[in-house]
């Protein structure tokens, strides 16, 4: 892995398996891979893999015939350029696992003050949150459209051929392009091939917080954890407690064992967290835990405004900097 140009082979490094089909001069024809929070193989099966292989060979025929325009090669990047990864893994002769590249890189960017957690921690948003449900064995054919996708005009049987301005041949391509959409974007363009009609250009209006997905399986070291579950308060409950209507107050529903073992805080089920480091609202963030994850550096302490038994107090909570099969903290 240390001699692989991961600038060229850029992908979401938390995917368990990922393929590229590339030309002899290293132009990427397509990607095959991608997952969701439920499973590493939600979008992978032999039928869609066979379709990807066929598409890759067709692209190769076009390349051989000189029909594919040359693409600019991305800036080269090698795992050894990450100082901590080099020290803690390479120089100790340890194997570099794929996810380490993503995690060390993100941690490096966090230290440099360059990390955009909306984009880099919440990677690979779930297309089902747009209402796109694919018929996985058929590649990019839509099985069902609902929500934003339905409103945009996508229909069952449509095959997605362009997304966010780029041609897409596989779910891996689509997922990668979707991940690349600016988190501040309000819409995304999609072209589908519709039977008996041909190409149809559509615009999907992105719902608020479209980029938020369940990232628990990643064990990001940049994702601060206080190991509680919490539910946002209803408007009526906020009103009752005299809290800001657009605030992110939430009620602790469960304190996980690890919080006690690590002595992170003294939160209890039923506590209302109404502020994080003095901030009570940040629309459209709907709940305190999401605000905390986006705004607190993993491993740091944070001050929570807590209502317990009707009394408001400030409570210090330490956050846990997670590790995922790493020998040292990046």
């Amino acid at each position, binding site marked *: 892995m240390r001699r692989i140009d991961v600038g060229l082979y850029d992908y979401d490094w938390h995917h368990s*398996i990922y393929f590229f089909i590339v030309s*002899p001069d290293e132009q990427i024809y397509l990607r095959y891979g991608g997952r969701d929070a439920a499973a590493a193989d939600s979008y992978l099966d032999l039928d869609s893999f066979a379709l990807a292989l066929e598409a890759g060979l067709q692209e190769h025929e076009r390349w051989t015939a000189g029909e594919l325009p040359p693409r600019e090669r991305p800036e080269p990047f090698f795992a050894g350029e990450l100082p901590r990864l080099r020290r803690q893994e390479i120089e100790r002769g340890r*194997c570099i696992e794929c996810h380490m590249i993503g995690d060390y890189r993100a941690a490096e960017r966090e230290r440099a003050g360059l990390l955009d957690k909306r984009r880099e921690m919440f990677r690979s948003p779930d297309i089902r949150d747009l209402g796109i449900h694919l018929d996985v064995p058929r590649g990019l054919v839509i099985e069902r459209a609902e929500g934003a996708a339905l409103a945009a005009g996508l229909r069952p049987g449509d095959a997605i051929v362009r997304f966010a301005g780029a041609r897409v041949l596989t779910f891996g391509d689509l997922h990668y392009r979707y991940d690349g959409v600016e988190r501040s974007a309000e819409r995304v363009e999609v072209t589908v091939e519709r039977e008996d009609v041909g190409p149809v250009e559509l615009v999907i209006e992105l719902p608020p917080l479209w980029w938020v997905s369940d990232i628990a399986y990643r064990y990001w070291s940049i994702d601060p954890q206080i190991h509680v579950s919490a539910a946002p308060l209803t408007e009526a409950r906020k009103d009752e407690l005299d809290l800001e209507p657009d605030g992110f107050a939430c009620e602790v529903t469960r304190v996980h064992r690890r919080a006690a073992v690590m002595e992170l805080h003294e939160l209890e089920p039923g506590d209302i967290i109404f502020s994080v480091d003095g901030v009570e609202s940040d629309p459209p963030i709907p709940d305190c835990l999401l605000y905390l994850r986006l705004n607190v550096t993993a491993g740091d302490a944070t001050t929570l405004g807590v209502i317990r038994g009707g009394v408001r107090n400030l409570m210090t909570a330490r956050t846990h900097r997670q590790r995922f099969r790493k020998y040292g903290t990046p």
Partner: protein
Amino acid sequence: MTTPVSRLAPLALAAFTALPVAAASQPGQPETLEWISNYQQAVALARETGRPLLVEFRCGP
């Protein structure tokens, strides 16, 4: 349908894992595949033969 394994035959294969997959590759036996764990070697083979590369990254063996 044809299995993906037989469709892999026209490609040069490169895999990057803790334990690269290796299978015997004999002329006239398209169902057997040889994965190359050295990327530079795989690119050289692709250039020499004009075949595209199937590059695999995976977690674990």
